[in-house]
């Protein structure tokens, strides 16, 4: 450990950025596993340990990165304060979407399975769409490409609206509660995940005071 002092230095913020992106990869892994269980009818017990371990890894990474951010400010002063505040918000969002994947898994663990239902194709397509958004969000954290970020935010807002509309649709359906409630809850979780992914991308491109807010500053886009 002492020898780390003599190693070639690389930026601490670069290390934080890399770890943040790998946290997002872990969050996607949890999401894919949890959604697959609920949509494929796989045995939840078979992947419960993996989901649990991934969640612990995300939580530990968040705690370590928070400490590293404090050290960064203590050592480097306030020059990066905007970035540091942005990172604290961003890390919390990744931790939340990790938790939301766990919530989806809990639905499956409680016996919900949509694998044999008629509307399964719609759910599978939506799951793939959201899973791909994790990858895009990670790319945008690394590239800070404003144009792609704006496009991503527009699509995430549209998807958020779709998820919200689906929740309303299931609330008012004539179908029995055992059919409608799991679907409404799943869409509700997906809506929250999409909103947090949008928040993550916003934090990469917007000044810290604008994160979580739309341009007019009036509407909170974080749905937690």
């Amino acid at each position, binding site marked *: *450990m*002492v020898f*780390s*002092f*003599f*190693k070639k*230095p*690389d*930026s*601490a913020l670069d290390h934080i950025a890399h770890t943040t992106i790998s946290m997002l990869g872990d969050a996607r892994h949890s999401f894919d596993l949890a959604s697959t269980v609920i949509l494929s009818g796989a045995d939840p017990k078979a992947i419960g340990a993996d989901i649990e371990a991934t969640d612990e890894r995300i939580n530990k990474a968040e705690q*370590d990165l*928070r*400490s*590293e951010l*404090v*050290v*960064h*400010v*203590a*050592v*480097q002063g306030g*020059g990066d304060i905007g970035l540091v505040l942005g990172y604290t918000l961003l890390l919390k969002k990744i931790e939340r979407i990790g938790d939301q994947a766990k919530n989806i898994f809990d639905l499956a663990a409680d016996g919900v399975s949509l694998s044999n239902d008629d509307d399964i194709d719609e759910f599978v397509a939506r799951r793939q769409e959201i899973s791909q958004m994790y990858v895009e969000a990670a790319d945008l954290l690394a590239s800070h490409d404003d144009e792609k970020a704006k496009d991503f935010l527009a699509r995430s807002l549209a998807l958020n609206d779709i998820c919200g509309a689906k929740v309303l649709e299931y609330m008012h359906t004539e179908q029995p509660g055992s059919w409608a409630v799991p679907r409404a809850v799943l869409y509700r979780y997906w809506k929250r995940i999409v909103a947090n992914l949008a928040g993550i991308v916003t934090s990469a491109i917007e000044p810290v005071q604008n994160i979580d807010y739309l341009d007019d500053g009036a509407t909170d886009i974080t749905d937690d």
Partner: protein
Amino acid sequence: MPKLPPALARFFPLPRAVRAVLVLLLIYIFLIGVSSLEGGIKVMGKETQESLFSNVDHPLAGLFVGILGTVLVQSSSASTSVIVGLVASGALGVDAAVPMIMGANIGTTVTNTLVSLGHVRQSHEFRRAFAAATVHDFFNVMAVAILLPLELATNVLSDSAEWISGKMVGSAGTEWESPIKKWVKEPVNWLKDFLGNFTDNPTVLGTSMVIIGLVVVLSSLIFITKNMKTLIAERLERSMNAVLGRGGGFVAILIGMLVTVAVQSSSITTSILIPMSAAGVITLRNAYPVTLGANVGTTITALLAALAASRPEALTVGLVHTLFNVTAILLLFVIPIFRPVPIMLAEKLADVAVYKRMYAVGYVVGTFIVLPLVGVAIFR
């Protein structure tokens, strides 16, 4: 050096190689400052020298002068370098310098204690920050309480240091041909000749050289520290993260020492710990050994200053500083029964400080200003 706004500094950073050369140049200027100090005292003549330093014959007076001087310049590196310069001039003996060096060790802790007062509005943060700052105070006061009487009774530190410096550069009372001394001698002679154009009075000439030497030593140390901090900021950050990841102990002492040697300032190392402690990311038990490493690391500056001196006694005093801090760690950190004492005392004091914030201010003013002033008045 004009300071660029942070945004501009990011666009126009000084290349690392240029900054490294700048640091070497600053170290050279620092050594010229020490040499000018030494030369100035010599020019003043024996009578003035004796009248200047007769007040610190009593070891406790020396100790309190060491505290006050260091509090004044907020840097033990600077104050110990000045002490080394005085010893190099022959105006101050090793016996008188040793308590001053110990006082400098106590005085330097004021900086991080002042930094901790910045957290005074948040009770939880303040408790942790104040404890992290004062653990350094308690350790240094305990070290002096044990080692100063021992040194006065046995000369164990100064004899050991004299033995080592004897092996390295020759015995006391002789002159040694420091290679660095040769490099810094010429600029000091130029300064002396230049000032000699304005006055023939040895006291005025000597005082002018001493003042210029002091200014050069203090300002060069400030710029060395600033540049080194920039140069090693990433390493410093990684080292602190390593302390967080693996906990305290001897590795933390080594990291504290390495960082302080690099930035030439224990105050930088210990002050970085304060916001980390306040935020709760580092525990008091893990921060404590880093401060002990900083104590040892900061002695490098006096040793560096001794390189510009022509008398072995200057190196002896520098080595006393190192031996004092190493011995203090061996006594108070390695021996398990003593290890938790500074931590417990710091935690108790932090509880009192949180209970009544004015006590914290009273502690700082009392310990670092009033007590030393009273001590000097009594023991001079």
